[in-house]
């Protein structure tokens, strides 16, 4: 297996080649405004190392923060038609009702609510009002709306109404980009609908970005399928990722954790990813980041995305240092480090200057930081270590000491010994852990729904079957599938032994 992993970050675009389980090459190039140039540059740099010569590449996996940035910065968003099936229920809380007003103004192209939807036990709540769906679609067309988010009550249990409505809308608006909320999983109408609407709002950006990725790969002369990494550390084929860009929201952080697991050979550990401005702390379980189970806000919108449970603190290699009183971060020089840091002839005192002065880093000009005394520098590092220790302690889910993998460009801030940590592991290529994580990503499938009148074992096995099928549709090789999460929850008040089961499986990408 030979794969290229690319991480398009805020500062750098990293590219690595993984060959027969080893990192064969790793390079960094500055991220470009148009994204494509940065990718091309990094691939060129990787090619220049000679590791790609005459070799067949099995896949290129790209991780990017492009989509989440679009939502957070309110840029490149498409106006969306929201179609909800479920009247007369839930009418007082229409689509977009809990969005921040500025984002809603930008995205809300129109709202249609018609009869339809299901009960928790699969009975129809109301028959689907097809005439009303067709009327809504005609109005969408008249309003020139081409991105459509369709939601329906209990659609994770029975998606048939959403699917039928999507057919009807597609007939009226043939070039519509339609997102059905059931494709995004979880129970909780508002949050699931929000995810669908965000996804629809990213339709144009997703199409253009992924086309740009494909072009960059083609232009670089690499003939390999393109995969986009997902929030949960897995990948989806480009054509599927194009349809569901919201699943790529948090992939940067996930990739660095997965990369850390891979480079260290540990499946269960804490990971600390120290960047230029922030440090993310998370926990690996079976080689995957522990997921946040609760509501995650993206750009102010409540969603139920599959996101890693991360704690971010304002500590990094570019963090400003103040001595009286001693304070490290949260302000950082960011990508200007190589200009503004004292070791590079600038005037801003940063954590990197401290490390250079102490000889921990070979960067810039050590003479420029010769005036910093060692005792002061050690105090600064101790403060950084204290911040890291506190974050790690907050994220630990078991008492006792656990191993810690330190990655990212600022990993030098993490000392070899920390309280509550059995062993601090610094790994080779740790500064490119995110690109490594992208290169080694797997494919997943998930099932989260309510089963009735089944034994616990039957319900778990039914859920497992659904998750397996979804993983295969997403591009996994069936024989390689393994279950990494299985959770069941009986439902209070519901009759007939109702149980909500959530199963997630992962597998290797199937050979093309």
């Amino acid at each position: 297996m030979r794969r290229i992993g690319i991480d398009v970050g805020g500062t750098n675009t990293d590219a690595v080649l993984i060959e027969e389980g080893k990192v064969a090459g790793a390079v960094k190039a500055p991220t470009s405004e148009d994204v494509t140039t940065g990718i091309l540059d990094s691939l060129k740099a990787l090619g220049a190392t000679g590791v790609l010569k005459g070799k067949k590449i099995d896949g290129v996996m790209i991780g990017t923060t492009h989509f989440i940035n679009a939502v957070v910065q309110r840029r490149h968003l498409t106006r969306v038609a929201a179609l909800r099936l479920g009247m007369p229920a839930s009418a007082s809380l229409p689509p977009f009702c809990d969005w921040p007003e500025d984002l809603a103004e930008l995205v809300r192209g129109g709202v249609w609510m018609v009869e339809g939807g299901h009960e928790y036990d699969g009975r129809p709540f109301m028959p689907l009002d097809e005439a009303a769906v067709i009327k809504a679609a005609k109005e969408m067309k008249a309003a020139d709306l081409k991105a459509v988010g369709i939601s329906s009550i209990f659609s994770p249990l029975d998606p048939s109404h959403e699917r039928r409505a999507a057919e009807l809308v597609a007939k009226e608006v043939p070039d519509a980009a339609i997102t059905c909320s059931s494709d995004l999983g979880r129970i909780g109408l508002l949050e699931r609908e929000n995810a669908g609407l965000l996804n629809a709002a990213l339709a144009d950006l997703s199409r253009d970005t992924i086309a740009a990725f494909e072009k960059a790969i083609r232009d670089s002369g690499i003939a390999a399928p393109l995969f986009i990494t997902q929030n949960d550390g897995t990948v989806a084929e480009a054509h599927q990722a194009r349809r569901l860009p919201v699943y790529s929201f948090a992939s940067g952080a996930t990739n660095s954790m997965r990369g850390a697991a891979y480079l260290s050979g540990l499946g269960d550990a804490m990971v600390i990813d120290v960047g230029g401005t922030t440090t993310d702390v998370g926990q690996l379980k079976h080689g995957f980041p522990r997921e946040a189970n609760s509501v995650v806000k993206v750009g102010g919108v409540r969603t139920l995305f599959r996101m890693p449970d991360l704690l971010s603190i304002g500590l990094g290699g570019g963090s400003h240092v103040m001595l009286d009183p001693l304070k490290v971060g949260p302000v950082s020089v960011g990508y200007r480090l190589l200009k503004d840091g004292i070791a590079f002839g600038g005037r801003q005192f940063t954590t990197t200057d401290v490390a250079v002065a102490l000889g921990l880093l070979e960067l810039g000009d050590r003479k420029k930081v010769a005036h910093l005394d060692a005792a002061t520098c050690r105090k600064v590092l101790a403060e950084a270590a204290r911040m890291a220790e506190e974050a790690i302690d907050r994220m630990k889910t078991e008492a006792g000491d656990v191993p810690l993998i330190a990655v990212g460009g600022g990993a030098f801030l993490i000392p070899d010994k920390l309280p509550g940590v059995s062993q601090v592991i610094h790994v080779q290529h740790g500064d490119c852990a995110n690109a490594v994580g992208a290169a080694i990503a797997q494919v997943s499938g998930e099932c989260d729904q309510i089963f009735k009148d089944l034994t616990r074992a039957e319900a778990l096995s039914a859920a497992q079957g659904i998750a397996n099928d979804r993983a295969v549709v997403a591009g996994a090789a069936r024989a390689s599938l393994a279950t990494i999460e299985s959770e069941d929850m009986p439902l209070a008040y519901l009759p007939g032994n109702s149980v909500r089961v959530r199963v997630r499986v992962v597998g290797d990408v199937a050979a093309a």
Partner: protein
Amino acid sequence: MKRTLVLDDIESLAVGAWVLGTGGGGNPYLPLLNMRALYKGGHRVQLMPAAELADDDLVAGAGGMGAPLVGIERMGDPHTLTRAVLAMEAHIKRRFTALMSVEIGGGNGVRPLMAAALMKLPVVDSDPMGRAYPEGQMTSTAIGGLAPCPISLVDVRGLESIVHSTPNAKWTERVARKICVEYGSTASMCTPPRTGAEIKKWGIHGTTTKAIRIGEAVRRAQRLHEDAVAAILAVEPGVLLFKGKVIDVARRVTEGYLRGILRIDGLDEFRGVAMRINFQNEWIVAWRDEQPLAMTPDLICVLDSVSGEAVGSETIRYGQRVTVIALPPPEIFLTPKGLEHVGPRAFGYDLDYRSVFSQ
């Protein structure tokens, strides 16, 4: 004094009602969203102390019944809740003069405001639980022997039912539950009408104000990045029971309730100590190192250690960092009759009630 609630009061009410839900009652987020929309539309709600009720005033308990999980797909709305109250008025051929909460804990702490906004009726600052409880007879009004009927149940599709006559609150609960399940396990309801005199005598007073006070403390602490749990204990005479990390949640459904055991391992000053909490929708008995520490009717509140917001028994999960506090129960629950209805034995625990506040 009657006063008009501002939206900020209701934001606080939602946070405080979730704390008083003691693990059950459902998250008040969706009722809060409805209130935001109603306030945006110009509606306002007045809160009145029970003491200002005239003896012959007539008060409706307005709220929701059903599975919280269904409620987050089929979201309750103010019009359907109002119809439940109107259906009761039509049945008893009298008009209500005020509304109140059927239980202050959880979503039902906010719901009466939804109907009150549309009906332009005040909400009485009282409820019959002072918290959340899983069963209809676990109320001050049932302890007081007030009429268990009638109650109305309404579904958004035009279904309206009245449970007209039953011998006691337990039967009302059983029959109403059946109707609710047929509706799809969610219903808007109006509980038996009470006179002003009955509420003044049997209501648990000041609970809406209390929830607002708790919510304000939590939200202020969040804004100032202060300890939100300490903020609650600064405004309520509660005690800190435990701090730790969830290490196991075992859940099972029996007789239509979510029962189970939560296990927490201690952190900070509680390192090396273990806590176990048994629940039936709500947190019922908390054991420290296998000794009973706090039990119903004391309010056991499990809070997110960072945000200070409540964590529900349905959503609490492995690894969460939580702080457990106890708040004092309404006094009526401490009478022999009260303990019969809501003491540990009412939940099947062979324990004599011992207040955590007398230890």
